[in-house]
């Protein structure tokens, strides 16, 4: 039935089943020789490639380089985007000034700016960080703005009648009320930051997961490409788990059955 709850073990079983089916289909295609290994290597080939990549090709360095780049670009976007979004969501003047502008740039593909960034910043780290920043900043700011806009006016008015000043309302009501939404926005945009990382590293890089994937394609090492993609997926899951844990820690009042 739609929306009806199911037992926890059934839920877990279904989740595992989707991965198992993927593996099953993959094995059937490869071990059954329906697809040549050049296009899709068998699962055991992937495992062997992963071991080689970690042991001989310094995959750990690539991972660290990529994580640093994503984190730098994302933190920069968050450091500017969160305060700006909160201001835009609370002060109509700020919204009127920034919203049309951000909305305009938001539709420009970040990857199309790569040639410009290379021209302006060269092919070093700052260019990659700029791509990630550009890919996440505008969406992040607008999403934070929406979260802040949704803070109930009655909640703010209540604070006024309890003696809070217009400035104080930011710290005492608007920020704590929008914090869960902001953390959720950060979780979602961090995922997008990874997408832009690969775009940034495919062009003019000499390390990182995107670079590794690009090089593997050049030498037709299909298994290495797949390992790179899986590693990015695993990092993504780890980050998601981290944010969910953080959410529970920061907002115990949400876990206890209520929004307001």
């Amino acid at each position: 039935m739609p929306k009806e709850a199911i037992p926890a073990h059934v839920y877990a079983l279904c989740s595992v089943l989707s991965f198992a089916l993927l593996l099953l289909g993959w094995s059937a295609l490869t071990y059954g020789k329906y697809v040549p290994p050049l296009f899709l290597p068998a699962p055991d080939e992937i495992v062997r490639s992963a071991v080689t990549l970690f042991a001989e090709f310094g995959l750990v360095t690539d991972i660290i380089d990529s994580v640093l780049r994503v984190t730098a670009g994302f933190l920069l976007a968050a450091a500017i985007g969160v305060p700006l979004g909160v201001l835009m969501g609370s002060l109509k003047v700020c919204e009127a000034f920034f919203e049309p502008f951000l909305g305009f740039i938001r539709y420009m593909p970040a990857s199309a700016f790569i040639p410009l960034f290379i021209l302006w910043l060269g092919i070093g780290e700052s260019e990659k960080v700029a791509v990630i920043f550009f890919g996440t900043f505008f969406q992040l700011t607008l999403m934070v703005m929406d979260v802040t806009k949704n803070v109930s006016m009655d909640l703010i008015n209540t604070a006024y009648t309890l003696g809070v000043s217009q400035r104080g309302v930011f710290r005492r009501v608007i920020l704590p009320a929008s914090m869960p939404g902001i953390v959720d926005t950060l979780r979602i945009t961090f995922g997008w930051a990874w997408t832009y990382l690969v775009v940034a590293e495919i062009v003019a890089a000499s390390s990182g997961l995107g670079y590794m994937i690009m090089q593997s394609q050049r030498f037709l090492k299909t298994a290495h490409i797949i390992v790179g993609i899986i590693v990015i997926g695993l990092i993504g899951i780890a980050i998601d788990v981290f944010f969910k844990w953080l959410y529970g820690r920061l907002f115990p009042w949400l876990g206890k059955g209520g929004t307001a």
Partner: protein
Amino acid sequence: MAAKLLVESVSKVFGDGGRAVTALENTDFTVGESEFITILGPSGCGKSTILKIIAGLTEPSSGRVTLDGRAISGPGRDRGMVFQTYTLFPWLTVTENIEFGLEVAGRPKAERREVADHYIAKIGLRGFESAYPGQLSGGMKQRVAIARALANDPQVLLMDEPFGALDAQTRTVMQELLLGVWEESHKTILFVTHDVEEAVFMGDTVYVMTARPGRIKARIAVPLPRPRSYDIKVSDVFLGIKKEILALIREESWKAANSLELMGDGDEKDV
């Protein structure tokens, strides 16, 4: 009774030009020290607007409001307010919510705790001190909201249909609870409602408002003795007042219903 709060020819118009709606027209009334006023009217009669103007959350289009002789300009802690919607801060516990106003005012922790403890006992929420609002029922939330407003020790308490979202049983309990708390502090209270029985049961004076544009249609004194318990709701005096008000309200509700229809027609012509 000395005039505590003075509302003088206050009007409020929302919007401008052809779309302007007069929510409140030339409203005058006086509230005495420690008086419990109830304001009764059909939906959309501007009764909430009056409270918001007194609270300083909305500016009147004309007229003025004075509290203890001083004109009101903006919200302040001398006028506490309880809303119909649930407005507890969800990230704060019951105790922290009640302490909120005192904390803003920079009162020492020991004093805050003492005041909060007092009100938690008063509203019967012992054992829920560290619960979050999400764990409370609607009635409990409104009790905490009342305690939070009172803990700040305001001059006037403004209540905008505070029990409007509660079921009938809970509402009766809350009315008696509020009267119990009031007997102790005798705060000046303005209580807005659309429930006739509630207005008569709670108030020293009931102001009946007209349909939009809102105005005070009648001022009705409620000479029922205090403390009141729910059994006076079947006394002859109570029923007499209720009957009188129902007649007044019926007239206004018809007008409100008709004017809504008229407004509907008007909108179509605009388009």
